[in-house]
């Protein structure tokens, strides 16, 4: 009897997760239908976002999300791979431990703090070097890159560490240098894991709100240079959700939220199920 109740409690809780995820999609979809009816495809292809005119085109926000994430990846990926190589192949045990602790420290810092740092300390530097207001796509990309770097380096290192020692030793035994072993053995062997890890980091970056809200500008305008202020989906949501004053405005914001959820779901699913599953099955 109690057995049955306990079983049903656990089963219900487990099913609840599926239910919540489905519910999230349904709710976001329902609330965005008004905007979809009003704008159709224009919602994602037009960049005019004018609440006073009841016109909502999300192109600038979508573009900003993609561009800032792309920029962040462009900056973070080479450094993260460099750090991962350093950690797995060069650093002595003490440095590894020290770095491990640093990464933990950074993981403990809420992303809103990266945003504050970016606004107060990094934006002025960009302004001094490149002129302009400092706030914009470049600042967002850099802050985002710094924020995902520790996670990215850690997961890339973990992926590289799955290469069996004996395989690396075999290449060293043929007279390979460390770089030979890295490029010919470790990277081909751990390829799926490395790519999966990088895409997972991308999935996180695309939905990141607080680190970029400070430094992006929230201007609904497709930027013509990386120094221009612009916006992204999470930045728009963070800034405008509490200000929306019409049902179409709300509906458009829900449309943005749905777009973001679908984008990150797809990216994360590709990372997890295509690349990282391969790794899990391969071992």
């Amino acid at each position, binding site marked *: 009897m109690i057995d049955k109740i306990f079983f049903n409690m656990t089963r219900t809780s487990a099913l609840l997760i599926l239910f919540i995820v489905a519910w999230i999609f349904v709710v976001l979809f329902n609330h965005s239908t008004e905007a979809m009816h009003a704008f159709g495809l224009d919602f994602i292809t037009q960049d005019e976002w004018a609440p006073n005119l009841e016109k909502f085109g999300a192109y600038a926000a979508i573009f900003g999300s993609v561009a800032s994430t792309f920029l962040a990846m462009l900056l973070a990926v080479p450094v993260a791979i460099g750090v991962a190589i350093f950690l797995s192949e060069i650093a002595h045990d003490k440095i590894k431990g020290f770095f491990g602790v640093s990464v933990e420290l950074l993981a403990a*810092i809420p992303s809103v703090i990266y945003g504050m740092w970016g606004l107060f300390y990094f934006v002025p530097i960009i302004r001094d070097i490149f002129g302009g207001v400092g706030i914009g796509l470049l600042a967002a990309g850099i802050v985002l890159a710094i924020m995902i770097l520790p996670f990215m380096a850690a997961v890339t290192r973990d992926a590289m560490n799955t290469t069996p020692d004996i395989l690396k030793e075999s290449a060293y035994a043929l007279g390979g240098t460390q770089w030979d072993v890295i490029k010919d053995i470790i990277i081909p062997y751990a390829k799926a894991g490395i790519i999966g890890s990088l895409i997972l980091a991308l999935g996180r970056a695309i939905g990141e709100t607080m680190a970029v809200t400070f430094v992006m500008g929230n201007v609904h305008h497709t930027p013509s240079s990386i120094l221009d202020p612009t916006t992204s989906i999470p930045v728009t949501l963070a800034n405008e959700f509490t200000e929306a004053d019409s049902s179409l405005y709300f509906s458009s914001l829900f449309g943005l939220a749905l777009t973001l959820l679908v984008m990150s779901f797809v990216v994360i699913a590709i990372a997890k199920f295509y690349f990282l599953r391969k790794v899990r099955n391969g071992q």
Partner: protein
Amino acid sequence: MTATQKRVIANRIVLTLSTLSAVIALGFLFWILGVLVMKGLSALNWNIFIFEGAPPGYAESGLRHALVGQAILIAMATAIGVPLGILAGTYLSEYGKNSKLAHTIRDISDIMMSAPSIVIGAFVYAVVVMPMGHFSAWAGAIALGIIMIPIILRTTDDMLQLVPGTLREAAFALGAPKYKVIMDVVYRGAKAGILTGILLGIARVGGETAPLLFTSFNDNFFTTNLNDAMPSLTVTMFNYAISPYEDWQQLGWAAAFILSMFILGLNILGRLVLLMSRSK
């Protein structure tokens, strides 16, 4: 130059570059940590714990409202996320095991763990804030609770699976019903791991800002009314930091420092619990 010499030089270049990237990465990270510690410590004083929010320019201005609000929100989120997460994790490990349903739940919950937290905020806005007609601590706690479930679920599932099957069999052999075996033997065996999962889960949602922006919203004054907007450290930090007032910005840094120390403390505690249970 021989081929081997070329390889040796290429190797040196790559190793230098990779060391350089580690230095760059660490440099940025210590810059941020340094700013956080310097700014936070210099803004820290007793007033912060005594006074609530005040208009800019007032000396008697503090973060008591946000500290208490944050504590309430996290406690409520934990009350929602932990039981559900543990029960769901128990289902996966003890009943679902390798069934298709269990794997689907694991996959979906894994994706949820990396999904944008602001979207959860929008969802809770639609299903809690809109029907209620106003922001509330409930809404904020539900948003954080939803974010917490997959984290607790995953660690519980993993930790329960580490409990050896022979232990379960031994308990079954004594004639115990399954729920008793799970409660008395499996949970006990995985106690430290589950506790670590809970601590890390709390640490994770403790730093969340985005899902609170339009659920619990914010309030510059002390409140314990769960039906009303509730201040939190993170949203307060955000609002103060983007304000043009220097004293508010100072308070923002103090909030950032306090929150980071809290989250760091939880992370360390979580690891200690696990280490201590392993060394036994």
